[in-house]
């Protein structure tokens, strides 16, 4: 890469154009977060002793967070305040504004915070303005992650990418897998069973509702991991490595295990920048439970301002705290070698807790979530939406999570992609075109936007 500075300027400009595609009026926001983070980083880096450094950190993180708080939570706060004051006969204390959430704001704000905190921790030196701009705006991760740390990406800008060695096989595998998950699996299940059932839960049978809940677990996974696969694949084509974001989450044996496999970059962000600063697990047992609960509640709130997301976070928080309590009482560790039946039971229970929590994540209101739950037991009649195809795709998608656990199968899939990567451009292009045609033919008309674009 002989013209590295020019490449960075070009790539930053291209990323800003990509961002402007959604709303040109909000490009300034990305620029403002970048400038605030960089000024904060310089201030933190120049501050000594530790008390002044801490003050600089708090102020910088607070300023970086301000736009996110405004765009994401103002509506919720103003409506809650209006209701509260309304009970006393008073008018709304804050103007009721409908603020549209800028796409990607949650992701680049968290990345900006990690940059400032890593400098505070002296794990990183302040980057140049261009490097930071490119780090925060780099288009493959800009709109829905993964949440890449500055220490992972900025050093890659500094070292030369080798254009002579592009891992086409692996990148293609990720991109086509991501497209298939989104266009075929997620869109099919969403339109065929999830959307109708969540719109009118009491109008469908208990079995329809049960499979709609299972199907939503697959929809949210296929949708989000599909996007991440494409993002990582595109970054690889440009010669950059992004962190892994999913690792077969529905074979998790506990909620703690689930969070090591689901949205991994958010989990580790919450762990490193929230849970550990709160004291982590190296404190009194009561405080550990509080830390777990608070971390998961805030993790829920990160997804959206609403009671449904708080309940979703609370379920995961209480579940993880309960697991921690059980492990501390029995002294059993998760790494214990259990038999297949015990493992199957653990996976079954964890999957059902996670799926139950997804009801609140998907529902528009707590009342709607309750309707879904009550319809699980009250509508005992023959199913209407549960077709053979729906059941097959749900069960097939769950079974696909276990592919990595079968070494021979995983090895033959890898060998297939290795052969693809080693084949001629004509063969690669032809296979790719047929795969793309198959995906667009199998998928329904009018694919909805990625779910995580809303966060």
């Amino acid at each position, binding site marked *: 890469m002989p013209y590295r500075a020019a490449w960075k300027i070009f790539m930053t400009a291209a990323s800003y154009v990509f961002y402007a595609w959604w709303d040109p009026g909000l490009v300034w926001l990305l620029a403002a977060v970048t400038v605030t983070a960089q000024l904060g980083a310089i201030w933190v880096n120049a501050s000594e002793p530790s008390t002044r450094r801490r003050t600089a950190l708090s102020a910088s993180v607070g300023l970086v967070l301000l736009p996110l708080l405004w765009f994401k939570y103002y509506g919720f706060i103003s409506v809650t305040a209006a209701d509260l004051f309304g009970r006393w006969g008073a008018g709304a204390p804050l103007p009721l504004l409908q603020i549209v959430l800028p796409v990607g704001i949650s992701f680049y704000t968290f990345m900006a915070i990690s940059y400032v905190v890593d400098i505070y921790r002296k794990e990183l030196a302040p980057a140049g303005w261009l490097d930071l701009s490119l780090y925060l705006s780099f288009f493959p991760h800009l709109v829905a992650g993964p949440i890449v740390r500055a220490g992972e990406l900025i050093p890659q800008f500094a070292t030369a990418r080798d254009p002579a060695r*592009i891992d086409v096989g*692996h990148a293609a595998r990720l991109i086509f897998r991501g497209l298939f998950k989104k266009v075929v699996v997620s869109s099919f299940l969403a339109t065929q069973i999830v959307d109708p059932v969540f719109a009118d839960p009491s109008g469908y049978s208990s079995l329809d509702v049960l499979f709609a809940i299972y199907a939503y677990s697959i929809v949210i996974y296929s949708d989000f991991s599909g996007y991440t696969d494409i993002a990582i694949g595109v970054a690889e084509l440009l010669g950059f*490595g992004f962190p892994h974001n999913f690792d077969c989450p529905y074979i998790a044996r506990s909620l703690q295990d689930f969070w090591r496999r689901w949205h991994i970059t958010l989990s580790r962000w919450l762990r490193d920048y929230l849970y550990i600063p709160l004291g982590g697990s190296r404190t009194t047992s009561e405080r550990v439970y509080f830390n777990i609960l608070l971390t998961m509640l805030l993790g829920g709130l990160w997804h959206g301002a609403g009671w449904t997301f708080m309940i979703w976070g609370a379920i995961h928080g209480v579940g993880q705290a309960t697991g921690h309590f059980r492990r501390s009482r029995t002294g059993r560790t998760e790494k214990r070698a259990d038999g297949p039946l015990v493992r199957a039971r653990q996976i079954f229970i964890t999957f059902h807790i996670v799926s139950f929590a997804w009801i609140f994540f998907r529902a528009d209101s707590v009342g709607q979530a309750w309707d879904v739950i009550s319809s699980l037991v009250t509508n005992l009649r023959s199913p209407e939406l549960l077709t053979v195809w729906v059941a097959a795709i749900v069960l097939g998608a769950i079974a696909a999570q276990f592919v990595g656990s079968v070494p021979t199968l995983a090895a033959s899939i890898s060998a297939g992609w290795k052969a693809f990567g080693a084949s001629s451009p004509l063969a690669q292009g032809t296979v790719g075109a047929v795969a793309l045609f198959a995906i667009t033919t199998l998928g329904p008309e009018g694919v909805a936007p990625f779910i995580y674009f809303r966060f």
Partner: protein
Amino acid sequence: MADPTLSPEKNIASTSWLRACLALFICLGLWLLLSAPRLEHSASASPDGLRRTAALSILRPVARFSEAIGLADATAAIQTAFGKDPDEPPGGELDLEEELAGEELPPLPPQEIRPPVKIQPPDQPRPDEKKADPQRSPRDTPLRRPSERYRLRVAVVGDSLAQGLGDAMRRTFRSSLVHVLDVGRLATGLARADYFDWVDAMGKISRRYDPDVVVVMVGSNDKQSVVFPSGRTVVSGDPDWGAAYRQRIADLLGATKQRAHIVWVGLPPVRDRGKSRLFRIYNDMYEAMLQERRDARFVDIWDTFADSDGNYRAYGRGPDGKVVLLRAGDGAHFSVTGYDMIVDLALQVMQNRWDLTRKVLR
């Protein structure tokens, strides 16, 4: 390459960027060739403008080449094998058998079978008939009393606003007394029959489903040329556009059966002020056209979702008096509460004008 710890499955095989670009070029080129007829079909039905012109100028020659070498026939056969009709309009066709699959269609009382009614737009009066006079002719006849055997049939038609409305209708009515056929279609309208023909779909609904009530909410995508099924096109901005659009409204009403009661839900104010102004004009057209039709009522929802100046507002008081978000983040669609409030307004019409019994409500 990047840090291998970041992507554990990597380093399977590497190739040069020139070979990678070549593979990508071949992939996209071949895919374009395989998909050109379908893409051309979609592009030709997209809204007028630079994007449509540019897309068609690229896709047309590729699609002709695909046809010339016989590839278009092969891909069409594959699409047919996967249950897709390559010749159907880009917005799809209404397949009522699929919509009703797995459901038991409620029987109709025998006395309800009546001939269809023809409606003409106001600028094309029928010479042999006087205009309907609401003072002299009874515009409203009561809805039949539903029973568990003879459930009321309600069809909800229109664009994505109607989809949300259909969900709200299903939530509102007792399924033991009312069957709701919710067939709203995303991105459709009355203007573009080449994309999705609501008149044709309404005809199918009338023949196969024969609804007691048709709830219409449509128009939010109609700021474009009017294209009739015959191919006649009246471009947006043409002085004849209004007459052409009224003709489409009349055709839709004409495709309903005489016994059907029609609830036409007006368009709401939206965040885009220009569109809001347009929607007021559309609403006037809908309301005027409905004067011609017996048992048809326009439900004006504008004021419920507007501020004191008549403009878009996102928040308002819900049925329980609490401040709630009424509109979706896109500034056009509604929240669940918003749709429920529209159903309440429609119900008022059905109850006050057509004696809809409260027993049908959950």
